[in-house]
């Protein structure tokens, strides 16, 4: 089977900014936006690592009488929201596959499904935070509460930014302003979205499942 490369358009010119082998016309041979996104995600590992470490540092060091993780966590509920976020990664890659094929109808379906999964996850997080607050766990109630809410809240903030990004792509597509040659824009949004998914994979295991 012939290896696919970025084809030369009908007028004989190369796609803007790329050679015939899909290499960007930059010093590194890769596009600035994709390189910047990977540098950003790499730095985000350090960012989230700091908050996960802070949680581990403070876990079990709350004053006597404070709520403990085992008393407040609702594992079946959090498992369901984790499953939803995992499925949103599937719909995200299917959206990318659709735009690469020039199938705009399916792209819109998958991208809006991804955003809706994200909204459902955020809704679940708001419900969880509300329940914890009713049970007496607040941002200022203990070091466990502080580190938990800051970590999961920051993750929720990242998911919210991702949702806005996805809705922007959906809006551009609805206005016929997103085309097959913009597939890389979708891929970069996907990289961000999958990153918030892998951060949750770590949070779910380290924060919720390990006592």
């Amino acid at each position, binding site marked *: 089977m012939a290896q696919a490369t970025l084809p030369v358009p009908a007028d004989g010119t190369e796609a803007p900014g790329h050679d015939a082998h899909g290499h960007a016309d930059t010093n590194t041979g890769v596009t600035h936006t*994709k390189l910047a996104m990977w540098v950003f995600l790499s730095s985000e590992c350090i960012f989230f*690592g700091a908050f996960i470490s802070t949680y581990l540092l403070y876990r079990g060091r709350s004053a006597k009488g404070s709520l403990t993780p085992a008393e407040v966590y609702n594992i079946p509920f959090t498992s369901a929201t*984790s499953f939803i976020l*995992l499925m949103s990664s599937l719909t*995200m890659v299917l959206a990318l596959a659709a735009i690469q094929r*020039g199938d705009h109808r399916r792209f819109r379906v998958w991208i809006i499904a991804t955003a809706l999964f994200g909204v459902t996850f955020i809704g679940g997080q708001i419900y969880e935070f509300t329940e914890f607050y009713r049970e007496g766990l607040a941002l200022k109630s203990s070091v466990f509460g502080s580190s938990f809410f800051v970590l999961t809240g920051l993750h929720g903030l990242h998911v919210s930014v991702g949702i806005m990004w996805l809705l922007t792509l959906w809006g*551009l597509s609805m206005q016929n302003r997103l085309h097959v040659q913009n597939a890389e824009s979708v891929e970069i949004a996907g990289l961000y979205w999958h990153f918030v998914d892998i951060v949750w994979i770590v949070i779910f295991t380290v924060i919720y499942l390990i006592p």
Partner: protein
Amino acid sequence: MSDETNLATTDDPALLPGTPAERAAESAHGMSAIKSSELPLLPGELRPHPSPFQYVMVAVILCVITALEVGMYYIEKDLPRGLYIGVLLAMAITKFVIVVSWFMHLRVDRPVFRRLFVVGSVGAVLLYTIILLTLHVYE
């Protein structure tokens, strides 16, 4: 400077994969008529992306691992603590690597992206492990 962030105004016909008949079949029956190997590589990629079917299979594997993780939680008291934590961490790392390799396409991208991400992720783990050990968190 490349014009990499500008949005196009129309689909470039030369960049549309497959034949018009294949595209019509795909539109009617789903993303199966056009193979991933027929798609143009995105900038920075060395090999084609997985097919939609492969994506679904990867998601099934991720779901199975997640179900096993949750199942482990309910038998935690029957297992030695070290084994329980070790297996859970192994499953989380497996899911992490699967998502990064298949969904984030690091397995088909140029190595520069993989190196960048490994520096950040492995560096973070090493850095914070040293910090937590220094602060005697595991005692």
